[in-house]
């Protein structure tokens, strides 16, 4: 009530600027970051650097899309990195020819389905906290990966996956096209479909969702499965990019994807935020890493800047929302 009163009294222009900052703050931050980076480093906006950043952005973006779904229903998915690495190990488990591609996709699909279902069922049916459920799933997958590879993975990925990771149509990398396709499909699913409305409903008020006949458990489980499937896809793309396989493909993606989503305006309590916001957060992370290296700062500075940006960007957003 109080906030409505102050809003009504505030001059319209000030209200408008606050509203713009609240809604579009992350995009303005993104544009400002690109501008500052472009000015401070002449190589930043060169086409090969942009392509390079896009290639780094694609796997993270695909993972973030899944993470957005999970965070919107009030959860979080710490198993994405482990799912990615497991998918990468699966990619090299067959003979390195394109003939084995359907088998690779099939096995990865089943693995992701199992991981997503395990996460979703633990969270909904056993009321395990999402943090711990997905963390345990990550450990189990990691263990299975190590047991299978005996700690030393070997083998090569089929040429098809190389094309997925490093190939390009014209100047546009294939993995970026994959990201765009995923963003379109899941953007429509989230923002234009009935299921998408249900995701927001379950995240915003699960009890109200239940009362109007939506099963919160079913929606949550589907979100965890979506996250696992997208992580698997990102893992396959990344394995093609890396070329050689190791047990840690995608390491750090679990926290990076959550940070990207939170920076992009998704509330960890669920029900608030958008897919585009999450992708903007991911883009900011990639740009920050890139520009720190371009300016020539050591890798230590990269880690520190990452910390500052994480806190700073979320601070801008949260302070606006609460005011």
């Amino acid at each position, binding site marked *: 009530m109080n906030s409505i009163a102050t809003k009504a009294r505030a001059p319209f222009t000030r209200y408008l600027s606050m509203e713009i900052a609240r809604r579009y703050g992350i995009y303005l931050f993104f544009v400002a970051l690109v501008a500052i980076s472009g000015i401070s480093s002449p190589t930043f906006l060169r086409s090969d650097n942009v392509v390079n950043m896009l290639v780094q952005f694609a796997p993270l973006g695909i993972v973030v899309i899944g993470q957005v779904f999970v965070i919107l229903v*009030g959860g979080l998915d*710490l198993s994405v990195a482990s799912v990615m690495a497991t998918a990468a190990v699966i990619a090299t488990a067959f003979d390195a020819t394109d003939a084995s591609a359907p088998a690779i996709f099939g096995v990865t699909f089943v693995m992701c389905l199992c991981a997503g279902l395990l996460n979703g069922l*633990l969270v909904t049916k*056993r*009321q*395990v*906290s999402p*943090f*711990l*459920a997905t*963390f*345990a*799933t*990550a*450990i*189990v*997958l*990691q*263990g*299975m990966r*190590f*047991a299978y590879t*005996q*700690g030393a993975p070997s083998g090569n990925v089929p040429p098809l996956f190389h094309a997925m990771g490093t190939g390009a149509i014209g100047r546009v990398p294939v993995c970026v096209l994959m990201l765009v396709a995923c963003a379109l499909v899941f953007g429509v699913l989230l923002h234009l479909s009935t299921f998408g409305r249900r995701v927001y409903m379950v995240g915003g008020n*699960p*009890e109200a969702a239940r009362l109007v006949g939506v099963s919160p458990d079913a929606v949550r489980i589907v979100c965890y499965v979506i996250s696992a499937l997208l992580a698997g896809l990102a893992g396959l793309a990344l394995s093609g990019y890396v070329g050689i396989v190791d047990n840690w493909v995608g390491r750090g993606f679990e*926290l990076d994807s*959550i*940070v990207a989503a*939170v920076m992009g305006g998704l509330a*960890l*309590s669920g029900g608030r935020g958008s897919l585009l916001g999450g992708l903007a957060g991911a883009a900011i992370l990639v740009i920050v890493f890139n520009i720190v290296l371009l300016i020539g700062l*050591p*890798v*230590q*500075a*990269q*880690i*520190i*800047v*990452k*910390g*500052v*940006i*994480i*806190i700073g960007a*979320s*601070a801008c957003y*949260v*302070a606006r929302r*609460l005011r």
Partner: protein
Amino acid sequence: MLSSTSSSDLIRHHVVPNGAACVVGALLVVLLIAGACVSDRFATLPNLLNVHQQATGLALVALGQTLAILTGGIDLSVGSLISVAATLTSGLADNAYGGWSTAIAAVLVLSVAVGLLNGVLILWLRVHPLIVTLGMGALLQGAILYYSTGPAGSVPDGFDALAYGRYAGIPVTATVVVALYFAVSFFMRRARLGRYVYMVGDDEQAATLTAIPRARVILFVYVFSALCAGLTGVYLAAQFGSGQPYLGVNYTLASITPVVVGGTVLTGGRGGVIGTLIGVYLLSLLNNLINFAGIPSHYQLVVQGAAIIVAVSVNMQQKRRAA
């Protein structure tokens, strides 16, 4: 409210949290019996004392983490702080300025400063503790990599007594840590500040309305958590003889597992430190048992993850309103 002895309050504040601890305690007993069946060397006093000693580091860091989680927050900077503390301990103890006592004093002062900064940023920026402490963790990691990129110095002779010292066959530091757990448990139940920690976590809005000094509680909790992490770093430096900048990397997530396994809810307000202590011993015994059972190291992670899933699935009574 503090002196209320109504039966519902009694059940809510004593039986329910202890109920979760009881379940984990029962699991501990099951594990001991299973261990005794697997190997006749498992349930012997020397082996159990070894487990007691090996649990020290995890127990220390999980103690602080429990308090942070009880307020509904989380401290993801502990891993990096442990690395910083361990590296500084061995690095500074090697120098001429005063030796190990100066090193420990410096580490403790730094820990308090980091904890204060965490608390101030959480209160001032109103950002979720997950984000603030994650950013702080990145900052600390980058900073310590500036100081040293590998093992720094070595601890002086006799310093390893801190990790391996025994009095009448009983590990000293481990026993002190257990005593600390009981002291903190008493403090949490009897002291006003201890009760406030639960209230802030239980219902932040109600805590604000009843004029509970939330700021003081948050500052206390994050300083305490940072101090525990700092001490863990000192302990690990003594254990390994030297600290290196990635020593604590696994402790961030590992410190949360025993807390949640021990029945403390991640949304805050429920649980307690004794549950965490039982959780720590459950996990340490499990690792020990896996070794005794002769399970190949690559499968150990599978068992560990599965055990976490079982332990948290059993704690059904933790169900709480969707926050």
